[in-house]
């Protein structure tokens, strides 16, 4: 591509780079914090896959929605979540998005259209189909992107969800992030045929895209979004990518070397951020100095997020017993009025 895509202006392209860098720097910080034992629980990092979340979410408007996965930090940042409140959640603080009740795998902000992140592989698929159904039924033109991985493509709800979305012509875009590994096993050993063919078999528009090319992802998802808004029903997009880190941080304690070194090196040489950086340079949109400046802003943002999170209060232990039925509080508040 010798010139930037017509439907993306400079600001949008820079915003995409900013968010890719934000994901990268945020997660690099998490890896360090994890290693130092400063994060409760466990985390799954998205580094290497940034172009998928950012490319896809850049094709949405604010009122659109997503569902995410256990490897969800990238989707959240791409949809506009604040790293400060994410970091606070990861440290179990009250100022976190979920007041410390969710943690890494369950951060949500419904006001940003983030309908759920999920510790269950494939668990978000029915929910995404449902939010698309709810929006369509209420006459809105919002669409829902359902992010899931190659592992989830082997869950029954993948077939069920695509089928329901197809017969009800729901505005949902199934984005399969094929990062090549189902936990610690190569997905090629666990998955028969092509994932996109599973969509085609149900009459769902399906295509594959280079998941390390943020502009390419944007264009393919953008076309799917247009079809969805035009009441043409769901699409399935398989984005080929690679996770640089393990299934979860700290896996080396038990996993052994399960990925060939040259495979890792090959994918690292196709860094989505470096590729996008080169394009923006070629297009005369962002020179090296400009890139360094953007990057520093994001590095600083992550440092500030950590300071914010560390200074944030821990939740009162009694809060563990709250929020089981949030509707009750809302109902009593309404009655009080």
């Amino acid at each position, binding site marked *: 591509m010798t010139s930037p895509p017509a439907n993306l202006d400079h600001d949008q392209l820079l915003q995409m780079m900013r968010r890719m860098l934000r994901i990268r720097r945020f997660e690099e910080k998490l890896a360090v914090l994890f290693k130092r034992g400063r994060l409760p629980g466990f985390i799954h990092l998205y580094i290497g896959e940034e172009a998928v979340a950012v490319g896809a979410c850049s094709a949405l408007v604010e009122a659109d929605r997503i569902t995410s996965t256990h490897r969800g930090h990238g989707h959240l940042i791409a949809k506009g979540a604040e790293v400060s409140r994410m970091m606070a959640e990861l440290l179990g603080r009250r100022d976190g998005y*979920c007041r410390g009740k969710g943690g890494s795998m369950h951060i949500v902000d419904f006001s940003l259209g983030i309908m*759920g992140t999920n510790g269950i592989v494939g668990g978000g698929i029915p929910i995404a189909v449902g939010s698309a159904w709810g929006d369509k039924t209420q006459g809105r033109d919002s669409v829902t992107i359902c992010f899931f991985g190659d592992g989830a493509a082997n869950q029954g709800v993948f077939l069920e969800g695509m089928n329901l979305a197809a017969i009800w012509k729901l505005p949902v875009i199934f984005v399969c992030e094929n990062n090549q590994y189902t936990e610690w096993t190569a997905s090629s050993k666990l998955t028969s045929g092509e994932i996109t063919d599973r969509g085609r078999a149900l009459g769902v528009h399906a295509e594959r895209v280079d998941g390390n090319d943020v502009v390419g992802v944007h264009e393919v998802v953008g076309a799917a979004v247009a079809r969805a808004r035009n009441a043409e029903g769901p699409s399935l997009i398989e984005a080929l990518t690679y996770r640089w880190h393990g299934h979860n941080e700290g896996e080396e304690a038990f996993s052994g070397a399960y990925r060939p070194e040259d495979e890792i090196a090959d994918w690292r040489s196709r860094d989505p951020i470096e590729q996008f950086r080169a394009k923006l340079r070629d297009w005369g949109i962002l020179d090296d100095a400009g890139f360094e400046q953007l990057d520093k802003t994001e590095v600083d943002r992550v440092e500030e997020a950590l300071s914010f999170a560390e200074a944030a209060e821990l939740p009162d232990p009694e809060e563990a017993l709250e929020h089981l039925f949030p509707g009750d509080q809302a109902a009593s508040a309404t009655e009080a009025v």
Partner: protein
Amino acid sequence: MSGDREIYFIKAMYEGLRDAMREDETVVVIGEDVDRSIIGATRGLIDEFGSERVRNTPISEATFVGACIGAAAVGLRPVVDLMVGSFFYVAMDQVGNQAAKLPYMSGGQISLPLVYFTASGPSGSAAAQHSESPHPMLMNLAGLKIVMPSTPHDAKGLMISAIREPNPVVYFQDAVLGGVKGPVPEETYAIPLGVSEVKREGDDVTVVAIGSLVLKALSVARELEEKGISVEVVDPRSLAPLDTETIIASVRKTGRLVVCDNARRTCSAASEIAATVSEQAWDALKAPPLRVAWENVPVPFSPELEKRVLVDEDDIRTAVMKTVGATAKV
């Protein structure tokens, strides 16, 4: 209430659904064959509300149960007819990991106004996979409100409350009650969740009975009255939240407790109620609380085998007599 017309339990459920759909256009009903309705509660709704609000689904329980979570989060009030209680197991990830947890995990950002209703429990030689009572398992999840009415009157009022409720509700229709008739007001009325009802007052023994076992307990109570034993029958109506206050007050009056539950004994609702009473009203108990529940096996097919496993009036009578220190004469 004596002036009310008598209608079938299943028709009372229908009226609850119909009235809730009339008062709120965001209420939608989905499930397998809800247009014609095998069990009967949704039959006729499509004529009044159309196929957008009364929608047949594929046999994909996990997906349509889960879709209601997303739909509820964006402003619909979905009601699912799951048809048979054991179908919950097919959808269990979406019920247990998603619907029951998402509001809590989000720190209370959203509530999910959705209803899952189903027939449950044995209906007569339906065999193991169509006779389940999943209510104890769902009680253990937290995050779900659970009701099980025993009369047509309660069936209508609880359906309306369940649909108006801003949180997830599971509504169990005891399968054998669908064809039972009782007085039901014509107008729309709500029976609050979490409020039990003393169906019969008595002094000697408290029998807490759930679903169709309320009718059996009342029958036993009438019979034992002639023998000079006064039985109080408490119908929890809601299992979550459970109205322990009324149950404890009753036990404090009678000093004896029998809990009857259409479920396997282990970790049944009966177990929970008996344990709660033991913890909170030990000083008032004159005899150990007794559970009348199924044997710990799947429900078998042959009528002879099924009868051996399930609860009948003899079991309730025997338990009541045991708590009052006598031996039942059958």
